[in-house]
């Protein structure tokens, strides 16, 4: 009986599972590429209807699985290109409504290292990323268990990163999501008023993460803890017993951990694992997530001519 477009959250959490993300400080040298395969799973059996946490016997537990691939390429000195493409499957354990599946949103980012300087005993870096994610499949964004929000999302992110000595590091990043419209299969919908259109204007959003981590001296192993949040501007609350809608006012805070091991068996091969949970929210599911990735880094072309000694590397 319910529309529950609450999986939107998942899109924002896939980063947890990725090998490299637009929100970290990892940079590749020109000519270096890192490709990955990643998997993520999220599940919730409670969600916030507005600010009110509830369960729903007609949904049971909503499981969402993400199967994705992506790459990060050292384009030129201090500028990396990232791309990813996920396939998403949603599966409720309760009720009679089927889940959905399909190719979700393709994303492309440019990430740049703007400033890198010694500060105290460590190194301070300022990075920025600009990207866009676009629905790559023809999925229905207001389907009961939709696989995504169905809108283009332009993302601007600033990243401040400090590598202290002894392998400790800390990072803060904040992103602004400038969203375009989603398109429905129907030409009338009601949010807080009626619209005679198949077009839904999506609320913009911000998100942020605070990360602290540790990397071993030999640079093989990295562990980090993340606290983050997301909030949309505008948007509206799910009314009692209504379903979710792409342009809901979504808010949440979450915690997570990421573990990475580099040069496993062979140079360039790495594994990544992570998990997390939503702590507070509105109009989103109270998810727990876990996931993993395997990545392989290798030179695609000889970029040494451009290489500057200041360029940092992932490992």
């Amino acid at each position, binding site marked *: *009986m319910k529309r529950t477009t609450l999986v939107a959250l998942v899109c924002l959490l896939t980063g947890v599972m990725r090998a490299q993300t637009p929100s970290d400080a990892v940079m590749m040298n020109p000519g270096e590429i890192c490709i990955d395969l990643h998997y993520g799973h999220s599940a919730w059996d409670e969600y916030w209807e507005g600010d009110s946490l509830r369960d729903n016997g007609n949904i049971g537990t909503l499981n969402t699985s993400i199967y994705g691939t992506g790459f990060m390429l050292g384009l030129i000195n201090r500028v990396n290109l990232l791309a990813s493409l996920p396939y998403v499957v949603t599966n409720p354990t309760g009720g009679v409504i*089927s889940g959905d599946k399909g190719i979700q949103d393709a994303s492309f980012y440019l990430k740049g290292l703007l400033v890198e300087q010694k500060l105290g005993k460590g190194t301070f870096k300022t990075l920025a990323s*600009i990207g866009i994610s676009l629905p790559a499949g023809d999925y229905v964004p207001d389907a*009961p268990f939709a696989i995504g929000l169905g809108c283009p999302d*332009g993302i601007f992110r600033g990243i401040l990163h400090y590598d202290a000595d002894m392998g400790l590091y800390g990072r803060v990043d904040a992103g602004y999501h400038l969203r375009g*419209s989603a398109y429905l*299969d129907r030409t009338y919908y*009601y949010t807080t008023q*009626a619209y005679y259109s198949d077009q839904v204007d999506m609320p913009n959003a911000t998100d942020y993460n605070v990360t602290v981590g540790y990397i071993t001296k030999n640079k093989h192993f990295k562990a980090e803890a993340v606290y983050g949040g997301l909030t949309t501007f505008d948007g509206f609350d799910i009314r009692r017993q209504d*379903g979710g809608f792409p342009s809901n006012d979504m808010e949440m805070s979450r915690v997570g951990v990421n573990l990475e091991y580099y040069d496993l068996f062979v140079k360039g091969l790495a594994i990544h694992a992570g998990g997390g949970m939503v702590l507070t929210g509105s109009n989103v599911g109270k998810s727990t997530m876990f996931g993993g990735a395997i990545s392989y880094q290798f030179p695609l072309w000889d970029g040494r001519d451009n290489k500057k000694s200041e360029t940092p590397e992932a490992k």
Partner: protein
Amino acid sequence: MKKLNYLVISGLAVSAFMASCTEDLPQYVGFEPYTYASLDEAGGTWQPILLTSGADTTLTAPVDVTDPSYISELEEVKGYNGSLSADEQEAVDYWGNNTVIRWQEIAQELIAKYNLAPSPNADGSYSSPSSLNPGVYPYFPFAHPPYATRVYAYLGAAQYDALITAWNMKYTYNRPAPYDVDNSISPEYPDNTLPSWPSEDATVAEVSSELLKFLFPLEVDYLNEMAAECRNSRKWAGMNVESDLVAGDAIGGFVFRKYKARAANDSMKFAQVDAATYNVMEAAAEATWGSMWPHWENLEVPQRPVGITPKYSSVTTWWIPSLEAVRPGPPPAMNSEEYKAAEAELLDLTKNCTREQERIAYNWGDGFGTNTPAGHWGKIAADYMVSYRMNPLRTARTYAYMNTAMMDAGISCWDTKYFYFYPRPPQANPEIKTLLGLPNFPSYTSGHATFSAAAGAVLAHIFPAEASEINGYVDEATESRIYGRIHFRFDCESGKTAGTSIGGYAVDRMMTDGAE
């Protein structure tokens, strides 16, 4: 700095791309004020729906346009002319010169707003909305399809009867419009020779707002505000003077009271039964049909103990001669070949539904939080009426017959549903998973198919040149319930056949009401 350029240029490109995607979205059927295809000067003699004639109420003759009181009213309109505030201009543009459509849209919006089922209580029980305490959750009304269809029917019929009455008065006294009395007034809408007393738009605003306040008691303030704006916008637009509006108010009020009296006695208050009564109905169905199919049950968790309006069948109809005359024969027994084929179709769709089938299912979903199937047809009808430049009287006639036909369709369909108590596909076979939410009433026959076929029959009669497109919509709406896997094929096809026949009774009435 090269890296920065990259980032800046990409940033600008992304911003430009996103900016191109945002614009003001339409919140109503957009149309430019248009010249009416006809004025239907004889409209006052047409046969109303509920009134006996357009002369059931008559008003004291208006004063002459040379009367000082008229001249002072005219001065007020002249004062607005050419000097509207931004808000006034916006109101003039919004209401346009067919306010019948706007009031139907307002009804659609209220229905979408109130079309949510009660949430379960902590102990797994459900509370019911109460008209005595409309503001206590669950709010009154729950505008499910039977409630919604009744709203549209009463609104359309009342608007129509009120406008027939207004037309009768208009062409009895032939008061010219302000812009014809004083050429210095330039109207905001195309001028015409329709007598301006009583104002058709004040008539519609009064009857519509009063009726909607009666049906949506929590919306009184909103509806008062809309009615006042609709009414005032006629003076701002140079279309009416105050006494035109006052006369329209009087007609609207008169017709509202007639319809309110009908609504109070149409048995809708008995449509939602208590659990004890419901269990008797269910047991009776089980005794009759239990050897052929298990009786329908609500599949929600927690289970809703009573379906939606089991006694909607007892509500007063508009055109059909009797429930039995239009009730489809029984659905197939579950051991029949017809049933097995229908079940196999849904099992296959559960696994292999094309994107186009999905699109059709969602486009015609019209479930919770929407204006319901009847509202969907209201929008389709509005587009035709605008493109055919219908005057407000003809517009009201279209809604009146289409919407009353859909209410008859609903009454008949609900009679059929609770006559047979046929299970929904996922109850019959849990392997069948749906695209759409499963409604809280039995499967056979499909409400959407019945509503759509009835509406389509009326619309195709009014717009014969559009019949093939309209029938295409009916077919798509009918199929949509199969693709959505909430109905068997025979639910939909029997519903469509019944709906076509039910719509035919409304069409029969139209052919003799004097408008054709």
